[in-house]
Each structure stands twice: as structure tokens, then as C-alpha cells.
């Protein structure tokens, strides 16, 4: 599915990603807690964000909104790490999104097929 996009396609993709990135972050965290780089790498690998730097302002907002929280993991050897975990409010928000998404995607697909 991923090929080199034209600049117009890139612009469309950027706009769509912007709307869904926070829910993708919640979805990843719903499976397992993760620290910053893990999250960034997963989102990059899935081409869900073009810039790793966007993740951290987003996490700051999700945390301020109480959708995620953090805990410090202090291993015996090595640096302490801040792990992000999803909260109950975050899970609820993810269910809301999941419901909306599952109604939008088939409709978009259908309307595109009718069009062509």
C-alpha cells in the first residue's frame, strides 16, 4: 500500500493522519504500555506520522486531558524510563473513536466506488 506519494497525496495523507494520530496512540497503548521511542517507532513504521517530533506535544495534551498517564520505570542498570499507559477515560475515548471510524470507513469506501 505504501509507495512514494506525490506532494498532493502527501498533503491529503497529512491531513487525515492529523485527525487519527491521537487515537492510533491510544490504540497502541491499549495493547501495552510504551515509552516515547517505542511509540514513535511503531507509528513511523506504520506511516501514521511523518515526524516523530509531533508525538511528544500530542502526548502532553493526552496527559493533560487525562487520557493517558505516565509511570517511571527505574531499572537497576541503565536510565529510568517514562512509560505511557492508557487510562479508563482513554479507553472510553478509543471505543468512541472505534465506533465512529467503523461507520465512516465503509461509507467512504462505498461512495468512492459509486463514484468511479
Amino acid at each position, binding site marked *: 500500500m505504501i509507495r512514494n506519494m506525490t506532494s498532493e497525496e502527501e498533503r491529503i495523507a497529512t491531513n487525515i493522519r492529523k485527525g487519527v494520530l491521537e487515537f492510533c496512540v491510544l490504540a497502541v497503548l491499549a495493547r501495552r504500555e510504551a515509552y516515547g521511542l517505542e511509540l514513535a517507532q511503531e507509528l513511523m513504521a506504520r506511516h501514521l506520522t511523518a515526524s516523530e*517530533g509531533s508525538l511528544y506535544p500530542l502526548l502532553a495534551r493526552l*496527559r493533560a486531558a487525562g487520557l493517558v498517564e505516565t509511570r*517511571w520505570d527505574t531499572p537497576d542498570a541503565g536510565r529510568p524510563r517514562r512509560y505511557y499507559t492508557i487510562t479508563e477515560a482513554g479507553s472510553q475515548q478509543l471505543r468512541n473513536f472505534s465506533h465512529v471510524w467503523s461507520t465512516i470507513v465503509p461509507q467512504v469506501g462505498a461512495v468512492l466506488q459509486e463514484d468511479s
Partner: protein
Amino acid sequence: MNTLPTTARRYLGELEAALTGVPAAQRAAILDDIRAHIADATEDGRNIDDTLAGLGAPATVAQEARDELGLARGAEPATAAARTLTWGAVALALLTSAFVAFILPTSLEFADQGSPGQPLTTETLLGQFGVGAAFLTLIPAALAVLPLVVPKQIRVLTAWIAAVATTVLVVVTGVDLGGFYAPVALMLWAAALVPAWIRRGGKVATAHAWRVVGAAAMLLPAVLVLGGLVTGTLQDPTPAFWIVAIVVLALGVLFALRVRFVDSLVALCGLVLMGIGVLDAGILILAFWWAGGIWFVAGFAALAARAPLGLARAAARMPGEK
């Protein structure tokens, strides 16, 4: 984190500076996360330049942080304050030029005897020396506009240069007409200092100190006049004089106390004072012009500095670390 390479430390420094207006808790969290991101990526064997490129420019990350947290959209706070104040300086410089070239008599010698306050010559600069000299009065405006037109990278430096150059010009030509540009120089210093203060985190204590300095400068003329009363230089004050003196003192104190709406009122009073200087001050023209200039710049600078702080306070507070 001294283990980080120089490029990474420079990136974090720029990011910290660019995150102005973001509440302290969020700013610290973002910086911590990105510092850890860089350290983790380096441990994984990723090239440091690739890691930094992948994060995006510090200014972009900072703007995203402001967008996410519902803070100032558009211009970054320090830049916005710099722009506002520099435009203020340009407007003030143009106003001064118009006044100096078209209204003010070139000679400020007044008859000692006879009718005081009556200038010996009523010829203006334009009338006496022609259009060329009138253009010379625009030099401070040209200096003031410089920081707005140079490339982005040297804008901050140019703001300081414009402030210094205009100050030198005022001092060198002060005995002639240059003295009238002192408020412009003052505004250009504000245009350099206020953004520098915002970039350094906009510390409230520093702001209070500057306010007290501003209030002291504002009250200086009033204190001098009252001193004149005490020593008998000035005699038989009218009731109107007392009302004005009390209002002035009250405004100065309220300004120092950072009471809302006082900033605009102070700036407005400054303009009125300068106007009185132009229209009706006789030999006190420069005194009124300077006093008004100090009030206008103090009020205007306080307004420009207040905006980003207000936005930062309005932001959602961050829940504590679990």
C-alpha cells in the same frame, strides 16, 4: 545529559527556547521525552543527525505543542511581541518626523524678556532647509523598520542594533532635534528586551521588577514638579494641578501593581501628554514630549508583554506525575 553529542544539546536548547508560552509542566515533559527519545535512539545505534531530522525542527515541534495545548495560534509569542513593539516604534518615529519636520519651529530660542513662551522664529524645518532636511528626519523610522525587513535569522540581532543606533543618534543630536526621538529609542529597547524576556521563560519576578522601574520612570516628572512646589520654584498650584498630580500618582502605583486595564490607560495618557506638548506647552515642549513618551512606551510594552503570559495561564493545568 552530558553524554549527548553537541548537536543534540543544541537541538534541546533551541527547543527549550522555542517552547515559550507553553506551561512549565508540559514544557518540562516534552523536553524530557525528547531528550530520552534521542538517548534511546542513539543507544539503538541510530545516527544522531537522522534522529534529529526525524524529530523535525524545534520551532515546528514547539508550534505543534502550542496548537495541541490550545495556546497562541500563529506567531510564536516572543516574535509576536517583537513585531508589535517594533511597529509601535516605527509609528512613533513617523509621528515624530512629521512633528519635527512640519510643525516644530527650527529655533527653540525663546525671548527671555518680553513675552515668554513666544519663539523667535516660527519657520519649520521644511520651510527653512527644504525637502532634503525633512527626509533626514526619517532616519530613525528607517532604523526602526530594519528588524521587520531583514531575514528571520538576524532579526533578533537587528533589534538590538536598531536600539543602540537610535540611542546614539539621540545622544549625538540631542541638543538639536534629536531629543524628540528619545521615546522612539526607548520603544526600540522595549522591542529588544520584551522578546528576550519572553524567550527566557517570561519570569513573573522579572516582569514585576521591570514594572516598578517603568512606574518610577513614569512618576519622575511628577515628582520633579512636586519638588518644585516644595522648594518654591513653582507657585500657586491650581486645583486642576492637584487633580492631575493625584491621578498621575495613582496611575503610576496601579501600573506597578499590575492592575488590569491600567496598561492601556497609561499608554493613552502618554499619547495625550505628547499631544499637549505639541499643541500647548511653550518652552516645556520637550519635557511634555519625554514624559508622554515614557508613559506611552511603558504602557505599550506592558501590553505587548502581557499577552503571551495570559495565554500561558489560560492553558490547562497538567495532572501530577503518577
